[in-house]
């Protein structure tokens, strides 16, 4: 489970999103990424939250008024704009796949 500090971090930056439904998707995304592994740590900047994990896992989430953007991979190789459940599903699926690829690299 995310720590109280991590939860607070997510709640703080989610305040940038005006739409309550999108804010809920944002919180779900962040909480689920933290559940991938205890080794994933969030880093808060004024405009985004960065998740860094083992073997180069990286996801950067930038909240806006009506959506949030997820950049997956070291060079932001994949960008997903989330404004509905379909976007959340894509963002989670691709983030999970990226995380597992990082685990594979660690094991091989």
């Amino acid at each position, binding site marked *: 489970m995310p720590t109280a500090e991590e939860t607070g971090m997510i709640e703080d930056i989610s305040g940038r999103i005006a739409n309550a439904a999108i804010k809920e998707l944002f919180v779900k995304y962040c909480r689920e990424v933290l*559940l991938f592994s205890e080794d994933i740590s969030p880093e808060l900047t004024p405009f985004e939250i960065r998740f860094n994990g083992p073997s180069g896992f990286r996801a950067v989430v930038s909240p806006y008024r009506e959506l949030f953007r997820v950049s997956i991979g070291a060079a932001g190789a994949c960008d997903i704009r989330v404004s509905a459940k379909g976007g959340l599903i894509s963002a989670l699926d691709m983030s999970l796949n990226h995380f597992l690829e990082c685990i*594979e690299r660690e094991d091989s």
Partner: protein
Amino acid sequence: MHPRRTPKELPDVSHLFLSRSDPAGDPGSGPVEAVFWIAVEKGFLHRAFLASGFGTAFAANGMDVSLLEVGAGLPNVGYYFAMEPSNYLAPVVECGGVVTGSPSASLWFAYAHEPVSLLGIQREFEDGERPHVILLSFSFSGGGPDPELLGELVGCTVHHLRGSRGNRWPDGVLIFGVDDSMRPAERFIRTLRSGNGDLIVFQHSADSAGRTDHEVDEMLTLPEGLFGSAARRLPPSDPFFNDCAVNLLELLSYRRKRIVSSDANS
């Protein structure tokens, strides 16, 4: 795992398992079933990977398999059985719910965050004459599942049995942990053994000399590179899974026969 001179396949030992050896000893007393739990310590990332590998190994060798997985965190078994993201992610996106699927005629799986969610569902494959294996995979922390969770896991097992209902503890448990010594699992094993004195315990250790303070039937050493296919949307097919399944069934068969023999002698 100890090296084998001649690798065995499940059919080599399934005749032992098939020769009904429940304590009643009555060939017509009910379906041949076995229950194995896959207990994965929180922090060990591969609950679903292991579950899908074991489920596939049993099913590929003529057993009907009900593969149950509970616990928070991704991936779940739906990922490894190549479900559409909208399906395997439904419990996350929709806040709850159950993921189910039948990758083959003899394998059915169900995933939910909580064991109670698996109580209201029924298997989606036809019950046949083949032996039935229930695999229940879950995460634990600290000294093992708390009594409430343990009760729910047993309830979940009982719900999916074909045969006699009742207080059904697992026949065996495979424990995978992040701690080499796995001392935290002691209380858990003691509790399970209080329900089933013949419980088979296979425990993962980072090295073959892993230390425990409780009796273990087999220390499991994971093959190097086992998780090298962790991102593939396919169940793993490493021989490790088949070897484990064979060893579990072999031990179970001998133990059941021993019980029958001792009942007959008394």
